[in-house]
């Protein structure tokens, strides 16, 4: 066959400016999904401290001095962790909302407004995240 020209990378992310709603939704969903599974692993790791805690004495536990409680509260005391938590919430909310959107799409419901529902997911995610800031930020020092 005759020669032809392959335009390589500009084909893909080089064209991000031209992506449409559905593509962004796909990218975000992927990103958030990976974040969530990553978090799940860390989450279980952190919770694993309860294995140690369960062998500690009742008194220690009641005094809230067990390794589980101290680890959790220690982490919660960190501003960075609180920030990350907000991020996690945003990620989770978006993944849930867009996940619902995808479930609708799978069922063939409201396909005409798939772009609108993507924007709605984004906005709602933003709103919920902002609204949750006070809750997440109570009792933490900077």
């Amino acid at each position, binding site marked *: 066959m005759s*020669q*032809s020209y392959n335009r390589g990378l500009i084909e893909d992310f080089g064209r991000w400016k031209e992506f449409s709603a559905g593509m962004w939704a796909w990218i975000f969903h992927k990103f958030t999904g990976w974040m969530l599974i990553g978090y799940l692993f860390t989450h279980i790791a952190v919770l694993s401290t309860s294995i140690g805690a369960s062998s500690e004495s009742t008194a220690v536990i009641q005094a809230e001095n067990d390794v589980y409680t101290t680890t959790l509260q220690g982490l919660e005391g960190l501003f960075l962790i609180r920030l990350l938590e907000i991020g996690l919430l945003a990620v989770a909310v978006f993944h849930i909302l867009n996940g619902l959107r995808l479930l609708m799409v799978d069922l063939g419901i409201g396909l005409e407004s*798939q772009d609108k529902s993507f924007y709605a997911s984004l906005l709602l995610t933003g709103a919920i995240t902002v609204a949750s800031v006070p809750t997440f930020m109570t009792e933490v020092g900077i």
Partner: protein
Amino acid sequence: MSTQQAEPESQEAPEDPAMKGAESPAADEQNGGGMVDEHAEKAAELEGETVHIKVFRYDPEVEGKQEPRFDDFHVPFEKGMTVLDSVMYARDEYDSSLTFRHSCRQAVCGSDAFFVNGKQRLGCKTQISDLEQPVRIEPLPHQEVVKDLVVDMDHFYDQMHTVEPYFQDEDTPPVDDLEEQRQSQENREKIKMSSRCIWCGACMSSCNIAAGDNEYLGPAAINKAYKFAMDDREGEEIKEHRLRILEQEHGVWRCQTQFSCTEVCPKDIPLTEHIQELKREAVKKNLKFW
């Protein structure tokens, strides 16, 4: 498929480097008055409205075009002018080596899907006045460029052929039978949109998944299969056979509902909807066996 850069040695290189297509576009300014050049541009603007188009150029054999570049043309505007009209004008008046496929000029042959201002569009169906200038015209992304705006369509055709794109019915009546098969109006309505595909390849080019997975059937081929699978004139068994083709690894499941195919389809075919419906059909069929 060759992906390597063009090698000039294959065919005799042009002897005269001064031919229009290979040279810097400004050279043509005197005889066409259209190419990019500040003076020419201003003059043209005075004369009347012109449209500024930037066209992707590449030719494996021509010096100066082996590395892709964009050429600027200023085309006199006329009411009703389409993107295809503008490149035809540029070709006929300024540079006869400007190459692109086109034929019907009425959105039925599917030859002239280009990447215009960042979107896959049919040249003949896009009014140039609707676009922001300069209008950037490129070959379809995710397909290899043969020359200028011409891309290699073989892969697209292969995918179309993979879904057994022909009517199959074991009990098709004999040829001399003068009786047609019956089909309800509803059923004909159901497959109506899917039957409008003109094989332009815009959808396939717009799909990121198809770009990443060369074996993915792609929206057009899946839609083609939809047309048959949903046609009641084909028997249940054949429908199952079709679903088996579609539910292969590189079939419907590959679709990540990005919707760009649906957005660019010049025939307004609800491609994503069709793909999703087939996914559900396939799941239903598989659930039956559980």
